[in-house]
Structure formats: C-alpha cells, structure tokens
C-alpha cells in the first residue's frame, strides 16, 4: 500500500495526490474499525477489483469484447485447488503458478481466434468460458470434482511463520495485490505497450499500418489479463477453501463486463468504482431481497442512458468506439 502512494505521486498532479493518499489511508484503516462481515465484503470488492483490472486490459485498453473472462478466473482457481489438495503445494507458491496456467491457457485458446473482430470474438469467448465451466462440471480425469467442486484448500502461509486465515489478513492480501497491479498497469498505460493497445482500440488498420503488430499485442493483452484473473482465482480459492463451477458462469463474465462499462473503459479508477458497485450493490440493497437484481438491471440501463462512457472515464479517451457493422473482417 505504501508503494502505491509513492509511485503515483510522481505522475499524478497535486490535487489528486491527496485524494489518492486519502483513499489509501481509508483502505488501510477500514478493516480495523469495521466488523468481519464488512471486511469480507471489502475482500470481495478487492477480488472484483482485481478481476476488473484484468478484464480492463482486454476490454478497456484494447477494446476486445471478452465475455468469457470467468473462464480464466476458473483456470486460476482450479489450478490452485487441484495442485494444493492433490500435491500439497503451498498456496503462495501456486499464486504465480495459477497466473502462468491461466496465461498459458489464454495463449493456447486465443491464438487461433485472435483475428476475429467485435461480436465474433465476443461469442467465441462466451463459448470458451462455457467450455471451461462445462468441462469442470464433467469432472475430467476425476480432477475437478464435478458439480461439487474441490474442497479442503489450504490457507496461504509463509513457511509456518505467517498463516493468512483471518478476514483482515485476506483483506490485506487481496488489496496489496490490487495495489501492486494498479502500479504496474499505470506504468503500462504510459508505455509503448499501452499506447499500442489504445491504437488498436481506436483503429486496428491504422495501428497495423503504423508498425504495431496487432495480433501479438492483442494476444499479449489476453495473456496478461488472464494471468491477473488467475491470481484472483488463486486468492479466491484459498479464501473460500473450496471451488465449484457455479462461481464461474457466463453470468460472472457479464458482471465483470459491466464493471468496466460502469466504471469507464480503460480507466483504472473507473474499475475500482465499477467493482465497488458490483460488490457493494447487492449488500446495500439486501433489504429488498428478491427485488435487488431488478434494481441492479434498472441501474445498468439508467447508467447507460445518462452516463454511457462510465462513471469515471479515462481522462484522455472517451469511449473510443465507433459504430461497428457486424462484418468480421471489416468493422469500419
């Protein structure tokens, strides 16, 4: 958390520096004054923030419609679950392993489909996500435990010195990971790579004609996005101590998609706002019980009516999207 503050101060103008500092303090103090229930909500807010950041790379920065992102999340969670329960590998060791597994999966699966545009890519990612979920349900090689999933996953520990098992510790684990990711992603946004991604989002043909290897950079976005989602899966699995296919449905992918669009495409503060909306909304509207999802849907529609670019759109860019005409080879 400290890193986040110092790193960002170099780039963010004074007025915003204080705001960032305030938010960091708020996040750091919150778990000590709130009860465990609220700390857990904060933890899930963190999970959604991390997932939002990961999808933001693909959808926000590059403009690729990915409605199967829960698939990458699932790969991360199940990698952790299986390797931990079967071979007893510590969770923290599995953190990078899960990220790599999800990245590798994204690379293999996305390589043949990366040339597809717009809605066509969207439907293929939906298919990919569904295949992952169905495969988990069908329990291949007796690894995934079928519809019930995998139980008995360990807590993360540092060689017996520190065991992360309380709500507060999980809260800090996820938010430190989120903070580090934000720092890294802010760096990427300012770099040659972030620019190349944005160029592809703005005009793919012009990007290619300016020497950007569109195919590789799209793949890179998927691989990095999947990796971060894999990290989220790892932490999620160890927090819940079990994983099951119903956590990784198409619905979950849609929620992640909404995080980005509610917050604002390609905007990191926007992702945090979107993740907050997704994770806090059901809690705030808990008294409405059955009707809360109705309200949620209505809010989504109203949002798009009155703030189509999201709550906190990226400063420089707007939506970055022009009407697209359904042709898979030419969307201009």
């Amino acid at each position, binding site marked *: 958390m400290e890193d986040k503050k110092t790193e960002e101060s170099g780039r963010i103008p004074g007025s915003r520096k204080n705001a960032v500092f305030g938010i960091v303090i708020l996040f750091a103090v919150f778990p000590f004054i709130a009860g465990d229930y609220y700390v857990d909500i904060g933890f899930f807010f963190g999970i959604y923030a991390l997932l939002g950041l990961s999808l933001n790379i693909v959808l926000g920065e590059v403009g690729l419609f990915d409605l199967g992102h829960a698939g990458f999340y699932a790969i991360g969670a199940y990698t952790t679950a299986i390797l931990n329960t079967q071979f007893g590998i510590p969770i923290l060791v599995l953190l990078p392993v899960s990220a790599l597994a999800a990245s590798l999966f994204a690379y293999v699966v996305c390589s043949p489909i990366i040339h597809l545009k717009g809605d066509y890519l969207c439907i293929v990612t939906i298919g990919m996500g569904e295949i992952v979920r169905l495969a988990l349900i069908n329990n291949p090689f007796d690894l995934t435990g079928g519809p019930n999933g995998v139980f008995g996953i360990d807590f993360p520990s540092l060689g017996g010195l520190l065991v992360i098992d309380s709500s507060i510790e999980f809260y800090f684990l996820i938010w430190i990971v989120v903070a580090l990711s934000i720092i*890294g992603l802010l*760096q*990427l946004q*300012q*770099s*040659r*790579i*972030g*620019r*190349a991604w*944005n*160029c592809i989002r*703005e*005009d793919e*043909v*012009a*990007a*290619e*004609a*300016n*020497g*950007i*290897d*569109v195919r590789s950079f799209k793949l*890179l976005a998927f691989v*990095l996005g999947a990796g971060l989602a894999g990290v989220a899966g790892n932490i999620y699995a160890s927090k819940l101590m079990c994983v099951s296919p119903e956590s990784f449905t198409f619905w979950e992918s849609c929620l992640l998609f909404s995080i980005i669009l509610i917050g604002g495409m390609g905007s990191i503060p926007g992702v945090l706002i979107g993740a907050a909306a997704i994770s806090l909304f059901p809690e705030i509207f808990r008294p409405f019980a059955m009707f809360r999802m109705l309200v949620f849907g209505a809010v989504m529609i109203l949002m798009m009516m009155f703030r189509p670019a999201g709550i906190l759109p990226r400063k*420089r*860019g*707007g*939506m*970055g999207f022009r009407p697209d005409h359904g042709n898979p080879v030419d969307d201009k």
Partner: protein
Amino acid sequence: MEFRTEKKRSERMKRNDNGILLRTDQLTKSFGGLTAVCRLNLRVHRGEISCLIGPNGAGKTTVFNVVTGIYRPDGGDVLFNGESISGKKPHQIVSKGIARTFQNIRLFSNMTCLENIMAGQHCRASAGVWSSVFGTSRQKEEEKRIRDVAESRLRLVGLWKFKDEPAKNIAYGSQRMLEIARALATQPKLLVLDEPSSGLNDRETEDLIDFLKSVLKEDLTIFIIEHDMKVVMEISDWVTVMDEGRKIAEGTPEEIYNNPVVIEAYLGKEEFSEEEGSYDGPAPC
C-alpha cells in the same frame, strides 16, 4: 501547367536499376471476379517523388494496399530495396521502411496529437512488458527518445499547439498533416501517400506541396496517388498511369501530359482510337 523540371536531366541519368527503391513485378490482385490489378510492373526511384494516377477504379489504392501489406497479392511480387516483401504483414513492412497514409484519414481519434505521432515510433522501440512495468532506465530513455522524435515531427508539420488535443478535434487539413507526420515518425525510406490533397483547399494544397518538397531528402522517397493534375505535374519526378488495373503509361510529367493514351484513358477513347490506333483498351487478364 507547371512542371517539376529542375533536376530532370541528372535524375534521368540515374534512373537505372540501382536507383529503384520499389518495384512490382507482374503484380496481380483480384476480388471475386474483378481483377483490380493485373500484371503490373511499376518502379519507384530512390529520392524522387513518384505519382500513381489514373481514372477512378483504375486500381491505384489496391496497388498501395498490396505494397503496404494490407492485401496479399494473388500473383507477382513486390520488391523493396531488392527484397521481396509480398505476403509480409503490414507492420513488418513498416519496420522495413514503408509508411503510409490513408485516403480517408485514419487517426487514433481519441488519442492526443502527440500520442498519435508517438504511436508512429512504436516499431523503432523495443521495450517489453516487464521493462515497462518496472520502468527500467533503458525503457525510460527510450520513452524520452520517442517523445523527442514525436515532438520534433509535430513541430515540423506546425501542429505543436495541438499537442494535447485529441486528434478528432483538429481541423481536417491539420488531421491530414498529422497523419503524414505520424507516418514520418516511423522513420520510413518510402512514404506512401494516398490522395494527400483530397479535401484540402488551394492554400492547404500549396502548403502540402511545399512540405513534401521540403522533406524529400536523399534517404526519403515519396510515392503518391493523386487526382489533382496540377499537384501531379508540379511535384512528380516520375508518373505512372493506370487504367482498369493495368499500367498504360509511365514517364516524366511532360511525357505523360502529352501522351495520347493517357488523354484517352481520362477522356474516353472514341475520338482517339481510330486515328492513333495505339491502345485498344486492356486485354482480358
């Protein structure tokens, strides 16, 4: 009509094979039943401004798209600096040194003018994910170099005042110059411009001509599709004329200006074909 004649004689002496930067050899490209480009042999000489002209639908833009790798040719070859580039991807061709602009300007419209030009430097930089995430000193230096080059290019086209403005907010003529500046930022050997003067008023066109002449150095060659005959005659060293996918003439601007075949292609052929008997329309490909 004003011709570009100042260095005509010396240039013509140099127009041997060694001076050829870009050559197409029997280049063919068809779409469905339509042969857009048919067995085209075309030459672009080093250090010159070459123009590709022809009536609408002659296949000029298709030639550009094949040369810059956006289309894959169906037959024949494209040689750049003596090396075959046909079938290579556009970004590979850019790093080999061919940069282009588009007939309908294609900028990264929500990015600032400076970022647009910085994007042009992409292929001349190499920072990867990890060096960008950790901000290594090499990456920082490279980033500074990219910014410096981009800033100098932006000043060169006189758009410095718009550096933080999103590209979509500047005037049409400025957008065109920005697109050319972006292409120049890729540090090309050959600059390929698709109708750079279209949509510009007379003054802007004059500025464009002056600008192109000023950037024409020994290591930069320019290849243009142009409709405006005044511009063509004024800036070209060499003109290639296409009609219905074929080359029907090539030569210096004066030669082209007086070539009956060219006049025929532009004005229709009834009145000429019998008397001249030189050109009976393209043979089936």
